[in-house]
């Protein structure tokens, strides 16, 4: 479970940065980039606190 959440969290980070790189090469529109960035933001900000909590419990 913890590992799965960690992977989802990292996908959130990837979704935050990768669209900007795609925009740089003209492979994505700015509106789509903004949408992806907020999606990545929500994923990370929701998942990361849970991972932090589970990590503390595991310790």
């Amino acid at each position: 479970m913890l590992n799965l959440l960690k992977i989802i969290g990292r996908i959130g980070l990837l979704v935050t940065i990768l669209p900007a790189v795609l925009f740089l090469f003209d492979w994505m529109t700015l509106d789509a980039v903004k949408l992806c960035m907020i999606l990545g933001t929500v994923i990370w900000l929701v998942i990361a606190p849970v991972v932090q909590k589970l990590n503390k419990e595991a310790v």
Partner: protein
Amino acid sequence: MTEVTESSKAQASEFEREPVPNSELKGASKFWGMYAGEHCAGTEFVIGPLFLLNGVSLGNIFLGLLLGNLLAVLSWRFLCAPIATKARLTLYYHLEKIAGDKLVILYNLANGILFCFLAGAMITVSATAVGIPFDMPMPTASSLLPNSLSFVLIVFAVGAVIAIVAAKGYETVANFANIAAPWMILVFAACGIIAFAQLEVSNWTALKELWANSITFAQEGQTETRMGFWSVVFFGWFCNAAMHVGMSDLSVFRFAKKESYGWATAAGMYVGHYMAWIAAAFMLAAQIKLQQSADPVPGPIAYNIAGLAGIICVIIAGWTTANPTIYRAGLAFQAIMPKISRFKVTLVTGFIATFAGMFPAIAMKLLDFVGLYGTILAPIGAIIVFDWYFHRKGDPSNLHGAQPASSFSIPVLLAWLIPVGIAIILMRTTDISAWYFPLPTWIGCGLLYLAFTRNSFANS
């Protein structure tokens, strides 16, 4: 800019009046992570654009910051970390042993007041993002006073939340700051990449030309620069002067196993004070190109580049850094008034910072304020460095058992105030920029301290 992380704060409440024992020392990864996160703050959104507004050439930004940040890292590595890992005391207790507890109170007062202004700038930054959905009239580069009632109300609301949260406790926000740090770094990077793409330049020459045009637009037709290469170097070096040469980070590195952990500050400098500043500068250049507006207001700039994620980043970056800054200022004031509860002192401190945040001048003149901040606080670090190497001979046992000659050391006070006083007079009467003063005041303070205390140490 910088703030206290969860770990450093939690640590600061331990071993305040004794050397950190070996069993409590931390590994290198803690320091790399901490510095990478804490130097990606809300104020980075302001500092980058201010370089453009001051007419700094692109080459000077890239090379000047490269050198300035290197000098900052070397200051941490070779001045702060070696003393911290040998003495293993907080700045305050170390200073108390040299200058007496009452002089530490004076230092705390200066520290607390300056922290309030810094937190105020961070509240202003957050408010510019919160105000977007409310159509709040944004302050401009030349705004000194509050420009609308809605700006005042939103700053008050943001500041009140930050003050109450800071007064209630530190842990939750500190935990959240740690969670947000990697995401914030990526949002800064993404914003920089998007802004660069929007500039639509295909080579260095075109970028330089566009940059020069942006400067001309931002300076309303003027092409002169206020900041040359050395200005950028000195600003990059001394914007955290209070932390490295000012020895404030003794409190952090006293937990380091080795002095080589001082290199970890490179993560903060080259992520926060290089990548993030350059990204933020590109964001303003893109705004100038697309909207013909040179107002360095973080909320709208980030919103235009990254949409809602940009707004959230500005709010969180401002909030997570204002919060510990207010907490730190509250602790500094509480040391002066120990009978009043930390809750009340922090709350009042938060509202003072909020009041300061209502004046956009502090955020818009952040480069000068940061220079002043370093000029006032950093010289205290010179007293610690000169005392350590000349009087204690680098031996912690000469410090740990020592008692100050008095509870309020006049030689230390004079060594601090004379160069700082001269620097402030020069700042007000000449055109010399504030970021040039921390170095001479630091050296002057150290030499005066040696001169004033030479006889007393020779006799002892």
